[in-house]
């Protein structure tokens, strides 16, 4: 309300615009909430309320314009139904599979993703997992730390990375960062993606099975969608072959995990490096008996550097939105 009294203006507490946080993002746990705060908006934390979500929303969230989504806070059609004033979803996760994108599009709700803040860290982990599997780093570190080197002798030989044909499944930001790194190791890159990319000269395979048949290693860098669910199936694994290796830094359900475990146990593929699983954090016990598998607890993005960059991007997007400025990282489906 306008006031001619200056004193009144100073005490005029216009409510800050609210951002609904249905569930606490993992990044709030890892670096605390403070880096994500701003004087330009406030968080409406549903998870701090004893009320069930729909009641909480009915009571507190009737004019909320933005939602902070994460892996633990999906944005479904049902949720959006309860929040008719929402115009923006900002996510802290690299993946967008927890957001009903068609529904957002239908309602004219913008989605802000993480752009490139995670790409280097995820690419680093993908390369690390590939080297680990081929050169048996985790397995031989275990061997030494268990005191086996003096008693059992040298560890079995690994496999050379240089010259390996590596197939990237999904050549987005992350996939591209992976290729930049692997080129320096002398790998031969090819890829499968929804569309051929004009800015790279790597061989493109329209069919992921054909890609697998022509590669020694597959690196899964794509997002999880209806089309990519169980994209890596029995046929693809068979095409990859007995000497083939698979690395997954995308989403667990992109691979038919049961089939992959069977292939690993029966020697139908040579090894795997996995940061994601179908039923996290419940990892199939069959993996534990395998020395040719490197397991990572879905932590590709969790470095202080990425978390700091993420917090700046999240705040930047929300501040831009509430100031009617263009978003820093709006997701546009190609």
């Amino acid at each position: 309300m306008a006031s001619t009294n200056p004193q009144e203006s100073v005490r005029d507490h216009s409510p800050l615009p609210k951002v609904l946080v249905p569930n606490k993002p993992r990044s709030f746990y890892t670096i605390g909430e403070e880096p994500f705060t701003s004087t330009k908006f406030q968080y409406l934390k549903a998870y701090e309320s004893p009320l069930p979500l729909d009641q909480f929303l009915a009571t507190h969230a009737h004019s909320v314009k933005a939602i902070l989504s994460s892996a633990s806070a999906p944005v479904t059609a049902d949720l959006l139904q309860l929040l008719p004033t929402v115009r923006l979803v900002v996510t802290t996760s690299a993946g967008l599979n927890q957001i009903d994108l068609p529904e957002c599009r239908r309602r004219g709700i913008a989605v802000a993703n993480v752009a490139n803040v995670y790409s280097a860290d995820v690419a680093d982990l993908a390369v690390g997992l590939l080297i680990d599997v081929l050169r048996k780093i985790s397995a031989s570190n275990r061997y030494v730390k268990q005191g086996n080197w003096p008693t059992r002798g040298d560890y079995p030989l690994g496999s050379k990375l240089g010259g390996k044909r590596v197939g990237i499944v999904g050549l987005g930001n992350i996939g591209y960062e992976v290729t930049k790194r692997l080129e320096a190791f002398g790998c031969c890159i090819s890829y499968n993606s929804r569309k051929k990319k004009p800015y790279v000269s790597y061989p493109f395979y329209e069919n992921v099975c054909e890609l697998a048949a022509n590669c020694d290693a597959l690196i899964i860098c794509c997002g999880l969608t209806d089309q990519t669910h169980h994209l890596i199936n029995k046929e693809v694994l068979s095409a990859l072959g007995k000497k083939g290796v698979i690395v997954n830094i995308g989403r667990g359900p992109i691979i038919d995990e049961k089939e992959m475990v069977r292939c690993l146990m029966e020697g139908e593929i040579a090894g795997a490096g996995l940061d994601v699983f179908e039923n996290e954090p419940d990892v199939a016990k069959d993996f534990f008996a395998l020395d040719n598998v490197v397991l990572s607890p879905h932590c590709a993005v969790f470095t202080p550097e990425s978390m700091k960059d993420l917090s700046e991007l999240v705040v930047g997007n929300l501040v831009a939105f509430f100031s009617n400025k263009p978003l820093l990282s709006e997701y546009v489906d190609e």
Partner: protein
Amino acid sequence: MESIGVLMTCPPNFPYLVEELEKRFTLYKLQNAPDKTHFINSHKNSIRAVVGNAGFGADAELIDQLPKLEIVSSFSVGLDKVDLPKCKEKRIRVTNTPDVLTNDVADLAIGLMLAVLRRLCESDRYVRSGKWKKGDYKLTTKFTGKSVGIIGLGRIGMAIATRAEAFSCPISYYARTEKPDVKYRYYPSVIELAANCQILVVACALTEETHHIVNREVMNALGPKGVLINIGRGPHVDEPELVSALLEGRLGGAGLDVFEDEPNVPEPLFGLENVVLLPHVGSGTVETRKAMADLVVGNLEAHFFKKPLLTPVV
């Protein structure tokens, strides 16, 4: 050539190398002999070549016991276990296995950097122990963009540099002399290099000058957030000092493929989550070991057929 005796001073563990040597020569396996001195004495007049590796070579004592020795062909690129001055003096040829293992060793150096900074081995252990069900793993350190300091910018050092560059790591180095056409920053001492990088990697040859080149002062300069990677030789690093630096937190982490007394590794390192320990596998791939064996055999054949040696050092 079956009458030519070749003494293998290293354990005869690589079947391909043993087979290829046995096809062409009479192979004497020193490690299998119950009485090594007696064994050498019995065969000294037929032994014209020695095949060694990173761990077992030809020292002055052995060379003196082999009057017919003409060539030492090492199954390694490092020749710290071969008495080179003695070989020169006695006009004994020496060959090694350069180039074929450069990429594998460089790959492993980067693998160790990623394993230490991103805690690959520890988080694998975390999952296998069932702990992930109880909570997420903690934050690890980003590798991309970290400054990498290389001790020794030879073939392996350069290969490590080009790989690290793909991760946007600024590169600096120490070498005996500054290299004129190299774009990386040079430091005239190891301690200055260590003070100015986050990841220090040992990639030089082991000589009298480079023994314990990474000492307490260097480790302190590298610091509590610094990581040491050793893919050179164990004696490059003062190992007891390394252990206390890690236990006391004066050094942030280490990735080690080599040790002062292989295969013995200091046990206090076993429980450290910021340390990765590998059983000297720098060149340990099927492809590279075969290529190394071919070079060893090729050098011996060249010598005995009076052709130019493939990869002579002396």
